[in-house]
């Protein structure tokens, strides 16, 4: 059995973010990059399946050369090999273009099961895995919190608004991981040393016969700003007349909106 896990390199959300001088993008200098946290759940699940039923786990990531660091950290968790699809630029790719490239790359790896995080924490688009599945004509299930696998099928619990449902998908299939699926393991020192010796296959758009002309975003960002800091709510005491008086005072003096 062969499992391919799609992982994305994203800025660590614990970083201090700044808007770049162009006013339309995030300042990348000084940011620390990590594997998108939902993807860690996908990697963990793949390694658990490998430990349980035997499988080869290959981690696939598309992006700039630094993506290899993220692939290495998945290898240090226990994945067997990596594949890096080099893309021009370093961020802001269109979901559609990335999905097309990843679909072609994933196909060359001949997976029985593809796992991915339910979304990446940078753009939160939640687009790529499902697009890959559709392009490869695979059954797929999203936002999964439980997964059972046999040699021929995968059974999953999917979160939906207000509840969940259980589905069985024939393999090959694609599944995206939600937080509750498992607790990702930490890289161990012995695995960090082993990861160094594991193979990362180098893929390029050229080699895959792709032009990359659909990687550019299909939208234009006109402005970017940091969200306004959340303020604490306040409950007013007293009867209606007192509360209205206090509300008007607060709107005028504290919030200065009147």
């Amino acid at each position, binding site marked *: 059995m062969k499992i391919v896990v799609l992982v994305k390199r994203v800025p660590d959300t614990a970083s201090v973010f700044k808007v770049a001088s162009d006013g339309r993008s995030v300042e990348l*200098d*000084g940011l620390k990059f990590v594997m998108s946290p939902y993807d860690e759940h996908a990697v963990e699940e793949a390694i658990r399946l490998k430990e349980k039923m035997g499988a080869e786990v290959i981690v696939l990531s598309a992006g700039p050369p630094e993506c290899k*660091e993220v692939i290495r950290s998945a290898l240090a968790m226990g994945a067997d090999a990596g594949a890096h699809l080099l893309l021009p630029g370093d961020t802001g790719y269109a979901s559609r273009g990335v999905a097309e490239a990843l679909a072609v790359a994933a196909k060359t790896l001949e997976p029985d099961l593809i796992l991915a995080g339910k979304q990446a924490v940078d753009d939160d688009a939640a687009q790529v895995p499902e697009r890959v599945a559709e392009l490869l004509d695979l059954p797929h299930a999203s936002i999964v919190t439980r997964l059972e696998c046999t040699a021929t099928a995968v059974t999953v619990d999917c979160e939906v608004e207000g509840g969940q449902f259980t589905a069985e998908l024939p393999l090959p299939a694609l599944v995206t991981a939600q937080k509750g699926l498992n607790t990702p393991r*930490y890289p161990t*020192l*012995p695995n*960090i*040393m082993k990861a160094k010796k594991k193979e990362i296959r180098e893929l390029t758009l050229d080699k895959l016969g792709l032009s990359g002309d659909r990687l550019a975003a299909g939208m234009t960002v006109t402005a970017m700003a940091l969200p306004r800091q959340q303020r604490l709510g306040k409950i007013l005491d007293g009867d209606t007349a007192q509360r209205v008086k206090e509300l008007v005072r607060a709107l005028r003096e504290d919030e*200065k909106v009147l």
Partner: protein
Amino acid sequence: MSDKLADMRFIRFLLYEVNKIEELLQYPYHEDHSRETFDMAIDAAYDLAREVFWPAFQEMDREGAVFDGSHVAAPKAMHEIWRQCKEGGWFAPNVCYDFGGQQFPLSILAVTSFLFSAGNSSAAMYVNGAWGAAHLIESFGNEDLKARYLQPLYGGEWGGTMALTEPDAGTSLGDITTTAVKAPDGDHYLIRGTKRFISSGDHDLAENIIHPVLVRLEGAPPGVKGISLVVVPKRRVNADGTLGEFNNVVTAGIEHKMGLRGQATATLMFGEQGECHGWLIGEPNKGLSYMFQLMNHARVFTGIQAVAGASAAYHCAVQYARERLQGREITNKDPLSPQIPIISHADVRRMLLQQKAFIEGALGMILFCAKVADRMQNTTDEEEKKTCNLLLETLTPCCKAHVSDEAFKSITAALQCFGGAGFCEEFPVAQLLRDNKVFSIYEGANGIQAMDLLGRKVPMEAGAAVRALMTEIGKNIAEASALEALKPLADKVQEVQNAVIDVTMHLGAIGMSGEVNLYICNATAYLAMFSQLVMGWQHLVQATAAQQALDAGADDADFYKAKLETARFYINTTMPHTLATAQVLKAVERTALDYPPDWF
């Protein structure tokens, strides 16, 4: 609670740009490594520190270790931390492959210890204890002891301690009374005595605990020349490595402490209730010199723990200062205008800068030592080995005493940033302050460290140790002076270095004249002066690297500019005080020496 415990960008700056630890890759012992394995190790350690150690920080303090009259239970959360460290190989990052380690440099071990201690010092000590005991056996034990004990200790199967202190022999180790008598049959000794203040002395985290114990053999000479080192397991270990019977190491109790309450600090009775077997490590009567090898590690580790607590407190204070709204700009007279975060007030930034400057200088000092220790361990050049040893001998008391003294002050400043809330246990800063106090006391109280520096290290090999350090400092001052922007800072550090050399010569003459008590009576002030020179030097070295990066057009310019300003703050605000201390030392202030005890 802050989700940041340390500045990883700064740690990378120290490792790669200042200390250039990639140079260590030239040594065969580290040849499998690369910057990538180093980064992955410190990142994994930081994740563990934030996500496993830190969430248990307050819980372990509130629950404490519990003694039921016969057994000690470690705090519940400690079991998960132990398991993670065992699975991750964190008991032995630097140890050789043959004993289950991964041959990382000590520079990386220092960083991972720092991160774990920033997350939870009580917890980090359980892990470090096992490493220390194993390291002693590895360095001085015979093949049989190594075969029995190393793998389980380095693998996190068993815990470890070091048992020196007795109820009536703490600082004065020459007065210990625990005895070891050669057993009539077998290769072991029969141990009798009581040891106190044993960190991780008893717990339920592992099925066995290994105690290296300082003892006196029958007929040993009095004082420090008659001390031997034995290994005493809680449960005996059979030749095939399986566990044998209980070895009569009985826990008499655990301490109820001001801080580090998650740590089981035990009083242990050896051989009071039946035969307690111990096996000699190395040669008879050489125990103290063996133990000193571990003590030197433990002293630097104490400095690491101290600055780690200061780092956690600092990041809590920064977060609070950004979020807490209080007051307005001094020039703003409009009472209806919104309040501003307290970080906008210069005096709050002064408190934050004081902490940041301390942490960066202290980490600089410690990681400088770690790189020197790495070189000493790896080099085949005897001359280099000797210089490294001299540098470490001189700097160890500074790492231990100055860093722990200043860390406590640093956390006091962090607590002050919180105002009244800092005094409440709801925020972690109060506990960080309580936890930090012991670092100026254990592993040789700071007064003893000062006497070690002035009484032992300064005169060592006719001043060779101090000369080695001064040469190193002089080189870096010259390098900084060559950069125009740093010349004023370099001049200030140079002035202090001149003063330190002057005071040292002056005191040296007093010592040579035989007035030993007068020579040593201001040792604490001497250690402060000496260490501030070391801190100023480290800031200058860091400023040089930052300036060079800026001149080369580095990407994240703000980081380097901040580093330059932090160095400027430390040097401009501390060096004048250092010169004042030098004046006091030169005047050989002797009131305390002459003050009769009856007048108190």
